[in-house]
């Protein structure tokens, strides 16, 4: 026969434990959700980038990640406090008796018994026992005879988990909303930086030497610098140059090691190619789509491949296939080509990044020519192309910025004038105007499809030559109204311009 006081005490402890567990369960799911989301925010951002083409602003994403982790920890701590409070509240002798009373349907006999038999109650309460108390004691014993406290008070996790899942859903929803708020359409710099990072990851993943690791680090630094809007363009370029040099160094080392191998095993050891991105059209048979060598003559010109024998390189446009070498290629030829391809790709991306910096620099020449809040991202207050204030006047030096017809660009970084720019910042290179060509000949077409507006100039009155005389062309139609530049309608599309594949500066001279 159990002591009913002990039974109520056991029930009280169990109720308190269950209350604490339930309270904790309520907090666990939202806390874990917040922490998990905080930890996974970066991968989620990557997925967003890869799948949807949007990116999370890294600084804010980091802050959000920290906030989520912090919130999760706070909720967890709050859950612990709530569990402790629930335990204290649940560990009540009389309350446990009332719970037992309800479950066993005892008409408050157990709670009355507990009130008068509570070990922690003051003596004055126990003094209220009457001669009828033994009857109450016996009744309590009889009621507890078939009671199994563990079976009666089971841990039911359904309800707290349901409540908890609601909180977790709220946390997830808040996180989604916050993420949506942080999602940005990537700028060209972001895109380029992301590509560079991907290459860096690839290099780091397959690195076998410290040089590769250093190269990966340099690429990452260049990517970071590219995205860092606070860095001046010169510094960005410097970082990119460093990455390029590092890449060259790595390629050189690879070439040297390969060269030694070839000398030991092959007959043909001519290595005319000097790595990706540096080829100048001398029969580079290991191009990755951009190496348009004229013709490879003589020895195989695979910078990394182990080709032996002699032969004639295929004419240009090799895209990774070594067709120049006859004879037996070694087994590591493909790996070598792959490495070259990566190297070339890296150079291309770095060159693009550099061009991107230059473009950005050209579009943001300095504070003097910029409105104060011009962010160069489409949303800023760019000069209104419709404003009528830039009308060239006859005799004025308004034509100073127009590229000279037939002339050669002094500098291939000429981005044109600020009166007639394309939206990528490049003015078309004009050659001799059609009207100066001989009949039947066609000059180079001027690609002005991306121009926002076109400025044209009517020829002035012909001046008299030394032997001729001035003849007035009275039949020439003359404008009856004043002419102005006819600006195109302002674009309403706030989206950033489409990415364009820019030709690296070093190749521009090669393209006509």
């Amino acid at each position, binding site marked *: 026969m159990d002591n009913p006081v002990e039974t109520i005490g056991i029930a009280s402890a169990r109720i308190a434990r269950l209350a604490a567990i339930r309270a904790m369960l309520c907090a666990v799911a939202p806390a874990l959700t917040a922490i998990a989301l905080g930890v996974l925010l970066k991968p989620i951002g990557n997925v967003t980038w890869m799948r949807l083409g949007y990116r999370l602003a890294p600084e804010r994403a980091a802050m959000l990640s920290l906030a989520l982790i912090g919130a999760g920890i706070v909720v967890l701590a709050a859950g612990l406090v709530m569990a402790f409070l629930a335990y204290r509240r649940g560990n009540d002798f009389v309350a446990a008796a009332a719970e037992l009373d309800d479950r066993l349907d005892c*008409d*408050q006999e157990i709670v009355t018994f507990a009130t008068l038999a509570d070990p922690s109650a003051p003596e004055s309460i126990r003094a209220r026992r009457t001669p*009828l108390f033994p009857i*109450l004691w016996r009744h309590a014993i009889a009621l507890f005879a078939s009671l199994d406290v563990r079976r009666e008070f089971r841990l039911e996790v359904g309800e707290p988990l349901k409540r908890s899942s609601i909180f977790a859903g709220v946390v997830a929803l808040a996180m989604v909303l916050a993420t949506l708020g942080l999602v940005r359409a990537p700028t060209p710099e972001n895109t380029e930086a992301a590509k560079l990072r991907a290459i860096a990851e690839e290099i780091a993943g397959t690195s076998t030497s410290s040089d590769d690791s250093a190269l990966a680090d340099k690429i990452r630094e260049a990517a970071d610098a590219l995205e860092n809007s606070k860095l001046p363009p010169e510094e960005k370029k410097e970082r990119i140059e460093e990455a390029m040099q590092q890449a060259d160094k790595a390629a050189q080392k690879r070439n040297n090691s390969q060269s030694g191998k070839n000398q030991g095993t092959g007959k043909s050891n001519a290595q005319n190619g000097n790595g990706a991105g540096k080829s100048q059209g001398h029969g580079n048979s290991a191009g990755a789509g951009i190496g348009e060598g004229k013709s490879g003559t003589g020895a195989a010109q695979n910078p990394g491949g182990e080709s032996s024998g002699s032969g004639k390189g295929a004419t240009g446009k090799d895209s990774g296939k070594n067709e120049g070498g006859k004879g037996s290629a070694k087994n590591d030829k493909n790996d070598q080509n792959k490495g070259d391809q990566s190297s070339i790709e890296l150079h291309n991306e770095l060159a693009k990044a550099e061009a991107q910096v230059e473009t950005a620099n050209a579009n943001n020449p300095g504070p003097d020519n910029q409105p104060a809040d011009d962010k160069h991202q489409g949303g800023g207050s760019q000069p209104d192309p419709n404003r009528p204030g830039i009308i060239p006047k006859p005799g004025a030096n308004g034509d100073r910025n127009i590229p000279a017809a037939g002339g050669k660009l002094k500098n291939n970084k000429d981005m044109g004038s600020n009166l007639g720019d394309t939206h990528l910042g490049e003015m078309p290179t004009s050659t001799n105007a059609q009207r100066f060509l001989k009949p039947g000949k066609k000059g180079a077409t001027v690609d002005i499809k991306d121009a926002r507006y076109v400025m044209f100039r009517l020829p002035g009155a012909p001046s008299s030559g030394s032997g001729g005389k001035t003849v007035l062309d009275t039949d020439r139609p003359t404008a009856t109204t004043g002419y102005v530049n006819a600006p195109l309608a302002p674009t309403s599309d706030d989206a950033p311009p489409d990415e364009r594949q820019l030709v690296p500066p070093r190749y521009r001279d090669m393209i006509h």
Partner: protein
Amino acid sequence: MGAAPQQASPDQRVADFRKIFSRAESEVARVIVGHREVVRKMLTALFCGGHILIEGVPGLGKTLMVKAASETLGLSFKRIQFTPDLMPSDIIGTQVLTEADGHREFQFKPGPIFAHMVLGDEINRATPKTQSAVLEAMEEHQVTVFGTTYVLDPPYIVLATENPIELEGTYPLPEAQMDRFIFKVVLGSPKPDELREILSRTTGTTQNRIQPLFEASRAPRAIEDLKALVREVMVAEPLERYIISVIGGCTPGGPGAIPEVSQYLRFGPSPRGAQALILCAKVNALLAGRVSVSYDDIDDAIVPCLRHRLLLNFQAEAESVSSESILEQVIKRLRKPRT
């Protein structure tokens, strides 16, 4: 049947209480048809040590009921018909000059209030002065005449009746005095079956006779023992809090007062109401074979214990809102938290 001796075991005492109560009900039922709830409340009030106010039209058997109860329990019974010219001395007694052995002296002649069970018929017809004389005796269980205090023998119970009709020339009991009655029960008209039974019992030749449960000499002591047993029934602290919440819920402006209470009541029950609730609930618990009070015991006692302690305002009168309906609302509202 003998009285439950004090030396008997607790179980035996509880069993005797239930048996005596049940038999008293049965004996009264031999002469009173129906009104079982009223009889039960009358016996409950007796064992609680309180008094009872019975409201009903004339001719429903109120006097017979009280008389039957007193006869069953072996207690003395007196009836007072209250009239406007009834004086306090007519009730409590007076000093009468008597002559014996050549000496004249004042001798106290006790009035009809000196009995175990006193039926005050139509108490609202007496003047307030007379009413207060009775009410003082009810509260103090003693009367004072010319400076001499006379204790009323226990058990003492006053059963006052009120006629809800013919209210001209009546003096309705003040609320403060109504508070001294532990219950107010309403005696309704008998149902057709009951009326037929009444006719057959009272107009025939056979008459049912009541078997007293106690001898007259032992009855007061036996009843007092049973009253002591009632007070030994235990009440848990949560149930005391429930009673307090009920009283607060019925008090306009009190803690937990429901909107209907604030809207329709001028005053709520006094602490006597809470005492009445507990005592009545204890009797209910004993009758259920328990030695501790349950929520149901309290709920059963709320309406008869508190209905005459609520003072309705004009709006309630105008809208025909009864105190019973307000109490039902209170029970409904307060029952939720504990289930």
